[in-house]
């Protein structure tokens, strides 16, 4: 590994650590910024004074802000993300780990579906640039990013679950592949639309490159030129965008889980919000933000592995 690449990786790692630290601090400050007394907001103003005192003690509210911050960082460092005052044996991490697989499964299925739709559509649109097919693909993609997932979900349910009875009813508590189809379409549609547009423009750029002209000039069959030479290069930026869209999938999952009554990180967060469970809200937000930062970091490093010019370009920039 050259020293250039090593210093780039180090730079990115330190950057990600800094962002994770700052995100934690920001979450801490925002949650402590709650107007009024958090104890009143959790227990209600008419709760017994003794209960209020116990809860305040448990939440470290009688300590200084700095001390509270140190407790908070300690909970992140030991990986528990804190414990609950009404049930000290259960940590925030336990609650999150319990439901996380459902959200990961939903996000992965949506991503796979989006790729399967977007890449062929984008390539076809680019190959027939300016045609009706291209215009239709562009319009469909625009529709895809304009239709809110909290509307698409209910409409799919109405058509396929309630009318045609092809999929389980929402909120039936069913998990597994069958129950994953409609939520994955709902969450993946906007991503598919974005990726199709990205594939189209990336493919158009590559198709006008000199090496494609060379490949054609030396008599390679058109199919080989397009699928082997052009698409491979055109997909590099698309894969990067897939990495960056993981965040959108995670925050979209909050809505889709609500629509389909699915368990998951989003449902946990919304329940925590309605119960005003500060520790859990804080924990869910941190896990989503950390995941996003880490996926971005990995995408960046993978991109560098594919395209060695990137570290040098950034250095010059």
């Amino acid at each position: 590994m050259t020293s250039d690449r090593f210093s780039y990786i180090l730079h990115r790692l330190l950057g990600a650590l800094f962002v994770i630290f700052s995100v934690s601090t920001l979450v801490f400050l925002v949650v402590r910024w709650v107007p009024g007394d958090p104890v009143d907001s959790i227990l209600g103003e008419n709760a017994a004074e003794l209960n209020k005192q116990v809860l305040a003690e448990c939440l470290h509210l009688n300590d200084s802000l700095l001390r509270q911050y140190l407790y908070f960082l300690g909970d992140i460092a030991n990986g528990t993300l804190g414990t609950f005052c009404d049930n000290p044996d259960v940590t925030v991490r336990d609650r999150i780990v319990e439901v996380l697989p459902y959200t990961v499964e939903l996000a992965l299925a949506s991503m796979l579906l989006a790729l399967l739709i977007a890449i062929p559509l984008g390539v076809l649109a680019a190959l027939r640039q300016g045609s009706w097919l291209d215009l239709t693909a562009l319009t469909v993609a625009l529709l895809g990013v304009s239709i809110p997932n909290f509307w698409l979900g209910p409409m799919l349910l109405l058509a396929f679950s309630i009318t045609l009875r092809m999929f389980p009813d929402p909120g039936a508590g069913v998990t597994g592949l069958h129950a994953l189809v409609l939520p994955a379409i709902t969450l993946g549609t906007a991503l598919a639309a974005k990726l199709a547009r990205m594939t189209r423009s990336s493919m158009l750029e590559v198709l006008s490159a000199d090496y494609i002209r060379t490949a054609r000039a030396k008599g390679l069959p058109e199919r080989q030129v397009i699928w082997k030479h052009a698409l491979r290069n055109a997909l590099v930026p698309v894969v990067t965008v897939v990495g960056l869209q993981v965040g959108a999938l995670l925050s979209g999952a909050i809505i889709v889980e609500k629509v389909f009554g699915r368990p998951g990180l989003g449902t946990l967060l919304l329940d925590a919000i309605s119960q005003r469970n500060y520790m859990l809200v804080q924990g869910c937000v941190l896990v989503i933000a950390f995941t996003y930062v880490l996926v971005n970091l990995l995408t960046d490093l993978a991109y560098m592995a594919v395209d060695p010019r990137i570290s040098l370009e950034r250095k010059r920039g």
Partner: protein
Amino acid sequence: MKRAANLFIVVGGVLVAAWMGIALLGPVVSPFPATGLDILEQLQGPSSRHWFGTDENGADLLTLILHGARIALVVGGSTVLLSGAVGVLVGALSGYFGGVVDAVFMRLTDVVMAFPGILLAILIIFVTQNPSLFSVVLALSVTGWAGYARIVRGQVLSERERPYVEAARSLGQREIWILFVHVLPNCMAPVLIQATFGLAGAILAEAALSFLGLGPQNTPSWGALLDQGVTYFLLTPHLAIFPGIAIALTVLGVNLLGDGLRDRLDPRHLAVRE
């Protein structure tokens, strides 16, 4: 593609103008009130009296959607103005002066952008407890300014090296004057494009927050209407269908406009024409 760009601008522009007209006049011309309870008219399907049916309180759904247009456009527009103003200012100062100012501002944008989608807005709304329309605008702007800052910084970085900046400096003009009077106006095309997509994003985000029950209470936001629609889904699906069409048509119009503008104003396209 120039023809397609023009078509997008025209169709998008007409859709956006239509919604602005609806937002402005709709609530005034509607014969039905948007508030109050009418138990005899609750959850009615579409009819000649109530074209889009009624909601759980017996209010005319079409009237509620017309009021919702006002909320969507006011919240969306205010969010774009606030986040755009902050983002342009931060990006301009960061790109032009560089150094510590740049380092601090850019790390700050990194942190804000580490929260995907509406997550930070959800957190802010959670702590404000009884959110108003203003707190929704504030929450969305806290998340939204970073995108503008990144774009403007990049633009200013390349503009500040141009000869006209050197010329202005040699005439003895003050740096801040050069930045705001000479450099910034040349960076506005990508800001306009970002603002258009920002408007679509803010309308969707406001509806999403209301759908999640995190928007202001008792306002006919499209997201809140949809949330109600999902609750009574089996009984009256129309309650979910119409508000969704309203959101999709508005966002589609704004996106079409943004797409068309991008194709017309993108510097790479300009370079080709030059």
